[in-house]
């Protein structure tokens, strides 16, 4: 489901934090990601005691909650921007404010739910929550970002 959107995510392998989208509209996204035990950050954070870094949880929330919706809005033609243009589009985070309530360990699946606050003048702002498989709150906060044209594709 939503394969066309997932295929447009610009991240690869170790920095792609979206497994599945269960719902996507102009106003709302729901998706999930399972933390792989062999992810690169567990070896050092912390040695012998792996805990998912807050910055990675933030990235998961941003990719599912903000980037997929941003791609969807551009693909739908809500903005003047288009994937058909020669420039490459990249999503850039402009601000976040997140609070964390619960640790996430290797192998855990996290569920992200994002609600749009506005999308105007190319800027998307959403309120994003992350919960575990029992619906317990892991993190929540406000995310905003823009999709920028980059002239040269980044190798």
């Amino acid at each position, binding site marked *: 489901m939503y394969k066309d959107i997932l295929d447009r995510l610009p991240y690869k392998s170790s920095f792609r934090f979206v497994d599945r989208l269960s719902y996507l509209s102009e106003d709302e996204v729901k998706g999930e990601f399972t933390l792989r035990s062999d992810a690169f950050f567990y070896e050092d954070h912390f040695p012998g005691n792996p805990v998912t870094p807050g910055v990675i949880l933030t990235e998961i929330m941003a990719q599912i909650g903000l980037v997929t919706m941003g791609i969807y809005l551009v693909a739908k033609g809500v903005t003047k921007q288009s994937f058909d243009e020669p420039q490459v589009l990249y999503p850039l985070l*402009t*601000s976040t404010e997140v609070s964390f309530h619960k640790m996430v360990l290797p192998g855990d699946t996290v569920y992200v739910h994002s609600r749009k606050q506005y999308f105007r003048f190319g800027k998307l702002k959403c309120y994003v929550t992350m919960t575990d498989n029992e619906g317990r709150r892991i993190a929540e906060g406000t995310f905003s970002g823009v999709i920028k044209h980059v002239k040269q594709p980044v190798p």
Partner: protein
Amino acid sequence: MDRQAILVELKKVLAPYIKNKELLDGITENTNLITDLKINSANLVDIVIDAEAQYNIEIDADSAENMVTIQNCIDVIEEKLSSANS
């Protein structure tokens, strides 16, 4: 609402986005939001949205793009206020 009155309200809109509050006191019509007030360019959208609520007006994308200096901002707000009342 004259330009001076618009400016008084505009300072209230800008204040949350200015880290160094002392910069608010030095504002003139020539002040640039990004280079002088050090406002994050991504926050200009929030400022436009807050200004819409503050003055009860609607600002279109073309007008929003012009809101670079205090003078530009007041011009746009003045124009939208007058067209809203006519």
